[in-house]
């Protein structure tokens, strides 16, 4: 196992993939796409046993459970140079909110700060930390990128995915009028306030329809499941994918919510 700590960045950094519970359960392709992107950029990828970042508890007011899960996650990734998540929402939880959970525990607070400092959202890690400027992928089609809220506002992920998407051969990038407006997912919110969430995602679907995009992508599977589910319910032909699939050149399989392709 390589764990060489140089003066700056390790030569072949050991990156722990925090795959996120939604990708783990619903769309493993995104996880494998993340692995490919990280390995192509020269990383050694490991996947410590993990569950969830704890947001369902944290955002439901259950700090104790959220802190228990945070402790478990921090310990699991102890041996990694970096922790990378293909999600701005889970990334935001790990980076911005874990340290807030241990206000009364100085030892844990320091560990949470250290953990936060080495943790990144996938695309911004590739560009901002590893200095990746282009990817070797092809994707034929017109694509709109939706800025998921946590990635955008907690982690300032905005230009990075667009920069890499523009390097994908055959891909035309268009902007949504309201790219920075929430899709209405909000985790448990989508089920707890289904009717309200639906009204918000309906506006997003309108916005997508008004654009020329044949494919909608974003960096968070939660938002993607929500937008895909709405577009499909309305009979829209727009296909929905995670940005990692497109960047890794792994967007040839079924899009989100589509059946498996019969051989």
């Amino acid at each position, binding site marked *: 196992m390589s764990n060489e700590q140089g003066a700056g960045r390790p030569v072949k950094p050991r990156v722990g993939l925090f795959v996120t519970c939604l990708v783990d359960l619903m769309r493993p392709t995104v996880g494998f796409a993340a692995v490919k992107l990280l390995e192509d950029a020269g990383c050694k990828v490991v996947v410590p046993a993990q*569950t969830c970042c704890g947001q369902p508890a944290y955002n439901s*007011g259950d700090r104790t459970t959220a802190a228990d899960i945070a402790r478990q996650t921090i310990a699991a990734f102890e041996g990694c140079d970096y922790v990378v998540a293909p999600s701005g929402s889970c990334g935001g939880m790990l980076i911005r909110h874990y340290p807030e959970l241990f206000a009364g525990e100085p030892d844990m607070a320091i560990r949470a700060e250290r953990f936060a400092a080495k943790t990144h959202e996938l695309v911004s890690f590739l560009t901002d930390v590893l200095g990746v400027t282009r990817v070797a992928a092809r994707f034929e089609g017109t694509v709109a990128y939706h800025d998921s809220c*946590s990635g955008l506002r907690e982690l300032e992920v905005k230009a990075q995915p667009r920069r890499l998407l523009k390097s994908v051969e055959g891909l035309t990038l268009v902007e949504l009028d309201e790219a920075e407006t929430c899709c209405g997912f909000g985790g448990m919110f*989508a089920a707890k306030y289904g*009717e*309200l969430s639906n009204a918000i995602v309906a506006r997003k679907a309108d916005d997508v329809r008004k654009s020329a995009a044949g494919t909608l992508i974003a960096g968070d599977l939660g938002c993607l499941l*929500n937008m895909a589910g709405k577009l499909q*319910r309305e009979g829209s032909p727009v296909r929905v994918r995670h940005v990692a699939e497109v960047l890794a050149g792994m967007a040839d399989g079924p899009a989100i919510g589509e059946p498996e392709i019969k051989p």
Partner: protein
Amino acid sequence: MTVVATTPRFKGNVHDALTDARLQGALVHASNFAGRRALAAARLPEFEALRDSARAIKDHTLAHLDLYLEAYERKVVETGGHVHWAEDAEAARRIIVDLCKRRGAKTVTKGKSMISEEIGLNAALEAAGMAAVETDLGEYIIQLRGETPSHIIAPAIHVTKEDVEREFRKAHLDRPADRDLSQPEQLLAEARAELRAKFMAADVGVTGANFLVAETGTSIIVTNEGNGDLTQILPRVHIVIASIEKIVPTLEDAAQLLRVLARSATGQDASVYTTLSTGPRREGDKDGPSEYHVVILDNGRSAMLGGEFEDMLRCIRCGACMNHCPVYQAVGGHAYGWVYPGPMGAVLTPSLIGVAEGGQLPNASTFCGRCEAVCPVRIPLPKMMRHWREREFERALSPAAQRYGLRFWAFFAKRPTLYRFATGLFTRALHWAGRKKGRFASLPLAGGWTDYRDLAAPERATFQSQWRAKSGAVN
């Protein structure tokens, strides 16, 4: 007599709002405040720095609030005015109704004031036999409609031009029935003519305050219609009603806050009228009231000092948070069910009426964070909504199904091996059930989702199980 909260039936309110075609049409065509704010912020290079200094001014004031409130009172008295302290809504109503009654007031004109809404002042004045007349155009319209404001700076944002015409025809019966009211200018001219008579007849004028300046004993209001000026200058008595956190130390501080207020609210560099009032008319003054009163309301705010909701007291009521909120934009302000809508209302309402009554509001947020991103005084609104959820969770006020569901999930989430096993089985079963279509149009226990959207089926086995199989379970 205080406004009765319908907040506990928030979900019903949301349903009503979403199925009200007229309201939905009005919301879509509402002014583009967000776009205008973005332009105003971009035009002013020091806008972000001004937000920092606005926050610092408010934080400093809140840290020394007692001092500045007392200094303010001394100055008001020095300039010939009177200060009345009201601990709650009932006390504030009593003070104002008594002041009006003792002066034999028949007509009370009013500038726009959310505090007046909070204490239910109009109903109290009416019950005491006085006519309360709202003079802000939006407020005048909703008063005719028997409604409360649906936005803190644009109270009639939920009303269309056609609605206004209908109300005016119903209310202004001494005007020709065949008059043309199809243009906004015609509606405006008619409202202006109607209100002019009220301004002249008023015995008492009540205004709110955007700022109370400790240094000079001055109250400041901003309006775009000039109605505030006529409300406070023409009657014999001017009563200002404001809450304790409206205080700022100096005129310089107020000027700094004014620079972020209008830009954040409507995208204007400054509101059309910024009016400063200090004491009653002095010898030699050409106009002004002969009596000047300030009623300072607490109504639960001092209890927020020093606690996790103190930051909320920085709020300068610009409305930027609701102008950028996907929830507010979808349902409008009335669905929130009490006085203050939008993200600021979602934090403030439980503070003022209790979390048992107001708890729905901080839950009904996606935590998209856009409110905090545009707040001129950088109030961490999502964080405080989460704090309310924590208070609810501690007191087991959240729905039982949610608490048990969370406990069930947490049991697995805290046990990675068991979790991997359980999610592996679950995912495989769901994948198998959804393999033909790739998604579900309905699914037991997932109605909150599938009533409105399809749900993608899991692709195949979980990532973790596939990874372990591939890598021989080395990590």
